[in-house]
């Protein structure tokens, strides 16, 4: 419980570490880099979030879960603001978040310049298999089980896996 007079942005950031991505529950909204700012004016807490993809169905649930955790901690005046610009990028994902993804079996995004381009039938970049660590993998589809992922398969251990694609 946070006493209203003791609300600080730092405490809110800490609390939000408990809010998980509903689709990839090992990473928090902090790990994903979608919390852009926290403003406290008197006893009102404003959380500014940036959606990952325009149509990501997880965003509504994330907003609700943020509200829930703040309410559970006796914060009553909550405002959740969506900021579209600057657009979210996987560069904002924390190193810790990337490690958690890999441990969960999802290949984390590589640095942006490698894939975000319009060239067709591009040479597939080396995505590391989260299971056996081989770089000998191939793209199955640019679109995977959720908007944020592509589908890959490892040529060595044959594991099919999701790749959290760069954005």
């Amino acid at each position, binding site marked *: 419980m946070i006493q209203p007079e003791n609300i600080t942005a730092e405490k809110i950031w800490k609390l939000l570490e408990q809010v998980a991505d509903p689709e990839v529950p090992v990473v928090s909204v902090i790990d994903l880099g979608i919390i852009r700012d926290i403003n406290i004016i008197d006893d009102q807490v404003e959380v500014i979030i940036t*959606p990952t993809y*325009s149509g990501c169905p997880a965003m509504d649930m994330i907003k609700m879960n943020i509200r829930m955790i703040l309410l559970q901690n006796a914060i009553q005046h909550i405002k959740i603001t969506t900021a579209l610009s600057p657009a979210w990028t996987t560069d904002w994902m924390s190193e810790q978040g990337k490690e958690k993804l890999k441990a969960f079996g999802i290949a984390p995004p590589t640095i942006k310049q490698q894939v975000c381009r319009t060239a067709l039938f591009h040479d597939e970049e080396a995505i590391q298999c989260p299971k056996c660590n081989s770089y000998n993998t191939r793209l199955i589809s640019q679109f*995977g089980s959720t908007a944020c992922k592509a589908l890959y398969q490892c040529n060595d251990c044959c594991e099919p896996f999701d790749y959290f694609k760069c954005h």
Partner: protein
Amino acid sequence: MKNLINYTLHLADNALILGHRNSEWTGHGPILEQDIAISNIALDLIGQARNFYQYAAQLINYSTHQPINTATEDTLAYLRNTNEFKNCLLVEQTNGDWAKTILRQFFFSAYQFYLYQQLQNSNDETLAAIAEKSLKEVTYHLRWSSEWVIRLGDGTEESHSKMIKAIDDLWMFTGEIFEAASYEKIAAGKGFRIDVSLIKNNWLQKVKDIFDEATLGVPQNSSMRSGGKEGKHTKLLGNIFNEMQFMQRTYPNCDW
């Protein structure tokens, strides 16, 4: 204000209707991976539509001084009639076979790609932000659909002939995209920094490049059909509404 609202609705309607058409493939795609791909593209487009509708609703409520928010993203999507929709005719065309769906997506994604490139520099901050966000998604759509046009055009005899049929069916709807509607002309003049003729040139070049690689020819001198942007639609839009708007009209305010 009225032109800004109409322009925003036009952007929203284009994205919603194509998103809805693509969603008809969900569960019916030719193979699982491509079923997932077209469904993901549908999701992106409907997400973009939501952002535009939310902005349009905000503008409508502000301009009509409503005490409560009468317009919402849902009323705009589910409770307007066909003659109020401002989408271009291309996006309401039926899915047909995979070739036709691919070609429709390619034509539209190439257009959206160049449009959003310009719109992200618009002096309207909200439209610019939505464009900046959406452009990243459209980049994937354009690459995916371009690759498929090449794969089918330069594929087997059968896939090639299906692409030619798709061009015959859809080319007549491409002219309208670049014919500025009244609200587009005024919106452009107000500093949205949208140069439709530049978008058209970029689009044509893209189509030529991809068609060349796909061993397909760009049609010359064919007559074009238009009207959608001004609310004059084919009966196909009504068919979409029979499904898309049915729940809200039959059970007003239903939620799930």
